[in-house]
């Protein structure tokens, strides 16, 4: 299944978004570790700060791999979405099964000009979410999916 399709990936800017988010949390954790640890002595404070820093670096590594694993492909009759490193998933969602499409963008995503596209079917378990698409690509995908969905719509 993987050989014949051309995979597209989220924008490289998504990595920047996630890195900013990780950095903010890490800096906050380091400050908190320093303040709380200093009450118990310098050695404890240093240990806590190093611990927070290590966790932050680990989170960056995790986020990088996670984004690298994300991909989607538009085939003739369905959309493929792959994601996940530890738990890898490959979803196949037929266009005809689409109920509606969400395009969302949080404040950080928006400032980087990115958006998340999500396809909903009648099944709650269906999970076709593509984060970090450039805004015009998100709009193109939304319009194309809506068009294909309408053309192939099937009843529940």
């Amino acid at each position, binding site marked *: *299944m993987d050989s014949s399709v051309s995979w597209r990936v989220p924008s490289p800017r998504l990595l920047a978004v996630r890195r900013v988010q990780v950095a903010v949390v890490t800096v906050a954790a380091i400050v908190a570790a320093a303040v709380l640890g200093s009450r118990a002595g310098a050695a404890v404070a240093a240990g806590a700060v190093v611990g927070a820093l290590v966790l932050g670096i680990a989170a960056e590594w995790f986020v990088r791999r996670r984004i690298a694993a994300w991909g989607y492909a538009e085939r003739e*009759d*369905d959309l493929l979405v792959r994601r996940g490193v*530890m*738990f*890898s*998933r*490959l*979803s*196949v*969602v*037929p266009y*005809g*099964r689409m*109920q*509606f499409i969400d395009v969302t963008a949080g404040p950080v995503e928006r400032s980087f000009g990115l958006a998340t596209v999500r396809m*909903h*079917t*009648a*099944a*709650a*378990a*269906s*999970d*076709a979410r593509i984060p970090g698409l450039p805004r015009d690509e998100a709009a193109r995908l939304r319009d194309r999916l809506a068009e294909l969905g309408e053309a192939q719509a*099937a009843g*529940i």
Partner: protein
Amino acid sequence: MTEPDGWRRLHPLSPIVRGGRGTIAIAVILLPTVFGARRPSNTAIELAAVAAIVGLGFVSWLVTRWRVDGDDLRIETGLIRRQSLRFPLSQVQAVDVVRPGLARIFRVAELRLRMGGATGKTARLAYLHEREVDPLRDRLLALARGTAHADEAQESPRDERVLATLPTGRLVASILISDVGIMAEAVLVGLVLGIVFAPSAAAGIASGGAVWILSVFQLVWRRFNQEYRLTVVEAADGLVLRGGLVALTAETIRPGRVQAVRMVEPIAWRLLGWCRLEVDIAGRQRSEGEGRAQRRSLRAVLPVGSRAVAEELLDHLLPDRPREQTRPPRRARWKSPLRYRMLAWGRTPTCVATTSGRVRRATNWVPLEKAQSLRRVQGPLQRRLRLASVHVDTAGRNVHAVIRDRDVDEANGALEELVASAEAARRAS
């Protein structure tokens, strides 16, 4: 009760029946007053409270109206927050006629339409006169089918075929050895022993845990009440499930609206060769004012029965279902040590079947034309063992087919084949 523009009202006694237990409680409170056993000062307050409740009920009845408008059922309700609801009949999944005990006394019934689609709401008409309900049900089903002249459908003779009836003895036996039943028996035995050996202690426990004890028995009662003499009928407008002891229900599932079928065999039932057969329909029942019983989308077609009866019903529901299932590779034991013994799956061009569950074996069938999406999932342990699972998602809430712990190559192949089969099945339907 018809207004000139086709709007109709519910039955005037609706608020009383809707009040249900509240109404009975009010009647119990009022009785002594009526017979003059209480002091008049209390009476005035009680009467005022009752009058207020009755007044509210009357207002809610007054502002609620409904009509069938082309292919839609429309309901308007609410005094302060006016709601106008539109239910497209083509999206109806199932129609229920429900008659609780009080409704039977007043000869009224509730009509519920379960809708599919993105919202999956339920339309409720509570309550209508008994006489009105069945014709309206037939008319709505005919409109849902797209029959242009809804009146013709009513005149055609109703040919029905009974597929299965539940003997009461078997229902009682099955409840006695079910999980709730065993709990209730344990409580009962405990109480009896307590009364015999330590009456004072037993009284303390009984008064302290009364709520728990009652809720256990209520569960048992609810099950008995719902499934008493459940009959499955194959009719022209779908599969009809009728049953109930105090509260009568008649559920009509439109043809081709079954999303998935599940057969459950708990360990105690397996010894007797019994099983339970349930069907799942679409909809995310999360409407306001719905109790737990109404929200369930899983219906027992056969609350308890032998494998042979279940197979017969399955032949009607899924004629082209896989007869044989294959087992996962032996190394799947490390991933699913308990359910390994039951894991299996099988498929035909139009249907997929999966089995799982060590203590409570469940076999799920999903017709591929109903598959909403497919997923291949692989966790860390599965990757080490070169295993993967394939999920077949449906619009039902409870039953999904999961082809668990197969060899990676088999899972990839299965995913590809199932995607193609589902596509073909969808085009054929």
